[in-house]
């Protein structure tokens, strides 16, 4: 990674000479022209199905074939490679598979091209919240191809035993359910709830969900930071109190997705907030999971009603420096189509952005979590859409971590006031 950063230093140094020019690529009104071979830059395909998807395109477009440029698995490394490529104004990457939180940065730097909405005929069929992630200043810069939302995994067996028929819809209901279950002999040594609270992107996700679920925002609709509010405080306090009362185990401050998944699979947690990928692993019957067949999923709980999930997923965008942009646009439409998205979820269980797929009877049978996932994504909110996302997410993590870490003396009031100040300096648009 450090090597990459030093190359980045080099790359900008080399490009220093022509800094005076206003930059040829990236003008937002540029027509999407040119046909021929293109490339898709995407993170390491752990599902193994991406090439099949590309083969389907290549079979019908022999003169406009797409080649996969596989980037590292780590999202930061992917972003760095894409940025280096853009700064070198290279046409090596035509279509970029962007993490949903990169859109503003890439668009503001004009590394990706604006896509006229009428050129994406299926846009109305995609879940609106996912389309929002691809927009910067109300203009479209990408098309969502996959999505992701948080789910509440819960131990159905124990809830049933304690006489609770339904998954909790609010935090209070969840804590009440925990108290009932705690009386059971099976619940010995179990904790109530966990999400991901290590200092990394997952903490931003969990913090944003707590704040949004309590009716607060981090950044409001106009793009202004507004996190020093009673609602945001209520959300953060829910987490603080969870740690204080032991409802959230102490160790959760070190949990990323995988640590929290293992804790749930080992039967240490009654409730877990995690992504859909956990379902298949927790359901594994090879002995790796102690909770196979004993759990179910529901949408996230909130303060007074259903909770608000943060959005994950990827948007496909066209590099400003690409050749054959017309082909790239066609390819993106092809990948976002119902047929391709269906083929993809069947093989990979990656959440689609196409709304109607969540109601497909065959799919809901194959993936029982699709119904709660649809509810989660329909109500989801993107993480702050800001140009300096890296700095903003670091500031959010610092604020949340400082209040949650063991022995912390920082009150939610102070943390949120400081965060507001910090965000105001970072978000100037």
């Amino acid at each position, binding site marked *: *990674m*450090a*090597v990459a*950063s*030093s190359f*980045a*230093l*080099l790359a*900008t*140094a*080399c490009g*220093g000479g022509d*800094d*005076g*020019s*206003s*930059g040829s690529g990236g003008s*937002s009104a540029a027509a999407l022209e040119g046909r021929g071979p293109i490339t898709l830059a995407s993170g390491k395909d752990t599902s193994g199905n991406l090439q099949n998807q590309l083969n389907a395109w290549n079979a019908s477009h022999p003169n406009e074939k797409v080649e996969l440029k596989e980037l590292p698995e780590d999202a*930061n490394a992917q972003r*760095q490679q894409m*940025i280096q490529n853009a700064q070198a104004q290279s046409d090596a990457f035509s279509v970029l598979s962007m993490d949903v939180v990169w859109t503003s*940065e890439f*668009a*503001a*730097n*004009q590394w990706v091209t604006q896509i006229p909405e009428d050129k994406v005929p299926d846009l109305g069929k995609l879940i609106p919240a996912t389309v929002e992630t691809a927009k*910067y*200043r109300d203009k479209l810069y990408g098309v969502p191809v996959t999505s992701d939302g948080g789910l509440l995994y819960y131990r159905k067996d124990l809830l049933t035993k304690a006489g609770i028929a339904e998954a909790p819809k609010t935090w209070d209901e969840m804590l009440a359910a925990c108290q009932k279950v705690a009386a059971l002999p099976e619940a010995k040594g179990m904790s109530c709830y966990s999400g991901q609270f*290590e*200092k*990394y992107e997952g903490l931003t996700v969990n913090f944003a969900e707590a704040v949004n679920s309590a009716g607060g925002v981090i950044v409001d609709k106009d793009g202004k930071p507004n996190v020093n509010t009673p609602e945001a405080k209520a959300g953060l306090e829910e987490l603080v109190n969870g740690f204080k009362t032991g409802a959230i185990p*102490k*160790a959760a*401050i*070190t*949990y990323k997705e995988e*640590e929290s998944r293992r*804790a749930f699979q080992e039967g240490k947690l009654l409730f877990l907030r995690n992504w859909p990928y956990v379902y298949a692993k927790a359901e594994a019957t090879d002995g790796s999971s102690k909770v196979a067949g004993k759990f179910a999923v529901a949408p996230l709980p909130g303060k007074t009603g259903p909770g608000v999930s943060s959005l994950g997923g990827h948007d496909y965008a066209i590099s400003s420096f690409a050749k054959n942009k017309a082909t790239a646009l066609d390819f993106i439409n092809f990948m976002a189509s119902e047929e391709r998205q269906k083929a993809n979820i069947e093989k990979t269980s990656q959440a689609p952005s196409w709304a109607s797929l969540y109601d497909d009877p065959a799919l809901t049978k194959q993936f029982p979590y699709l119904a709660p996932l649809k509810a989660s994504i329909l109500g989801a909110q993107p993480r702050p859409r800001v*140009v*300096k996302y*890296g*700095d903003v997410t*670091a500031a959010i*993590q*610092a604020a949340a971590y400082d209040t949650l*870490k*063991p*022995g912390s003396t920082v009150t939610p009031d102070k943390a949120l006031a400081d965060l507001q100040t910090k965000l105001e300096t970072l978000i*100037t*648009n």
Partner: protein
Amino acid sequence: MTASTPVPEGPASTSKRQQRFNEGTGRLAAILLSPTLLVLAVVVLFPIISALKESLFQSGQRLDENGFIVKGSTFVGLDNYLDIFRGETGDRFWNAFYNTTFFTVVCVVLETVLGVAMALIMHKAFKGRGLVRASILVPWAIPTVISALLWKWIFQADGIANTLLGSQVLWSTEGWQSKLSVVIADTWKTAPFIGLLVLAGLQTIPAEVYEAAKVDGANAWRTFTRITLPLVKPALLVAVLFRILDTLRIFDLPFVLVGQHKNSVETLSMLAYDEASNVRFGPAAAYATLLFLYVAVVAYLFVKILGADVIGEARAKKPGGGRRKKNGGAGAAAATAAVGVSAASGSGRSI
């Protein structure tokens, strides 16, 4: 290094011929060396200069009315450097500076003690010596990132460290425990390096010296302090110098083992990385340059004060008046140059 070019001496009558000869060989040497110098210029000189240049510029920090980043970079003089010491970033910098220095001092001391002990064990003739040597070297053979991951597993909340200690220490949280975990993992990995170099030094000590000491009735401690340590000192100093330079640039271990943005373990390399990954290459280059200067100063002082013979010059030359001092200086310069390269071009170690 120019010191190695022989200075023409002798009477005036032969000096012309001599000079022509010298010019000829000098030219030939220059021609033969030019590919090397060219490569060095491209991979060493150019990155350093361009990083220095980069550190005087800023770019991509302003938005125009359409929400697009204003292109082009502006010359800001020393602002990037001054910003490092101002306000919140100043606190962060000094914290990272302290952490870097703390890790360097603590880790290198521990590694030196353990490394020398390991070398002494490896040097002894006993049954299964080969096995012991190999097993001591295993940690050194493992890439740092992998060993960081291994230790991350060990230091997990429900990991083996907590099981053995019978406690619930949350190692990756802020505080002394995260520092300790980095020190343990770094010592585990790199003590064998010092061990290996010291072992090489030990093997050059003739057995007669020890026999003589035995005959004179010296005990083991005296033998160690009066014979082993002085004779192994050149090798040991080089090993320690390398470790100091390496640890001053420590990046991957805290980054992977504990994580980013943790005050307890954030080091100077991590600051440079953080700036670069947020596409602020000017400030990143400024951080890298500061680290480069810090490393260079430390290396220079180390060589000056302890007289570490980094490039093996002192032994090759005859001991003579002022000569020795000059060699010391050349060695120091060479060492700082080598260090500077890695610090400036790396802004951290590979991960």
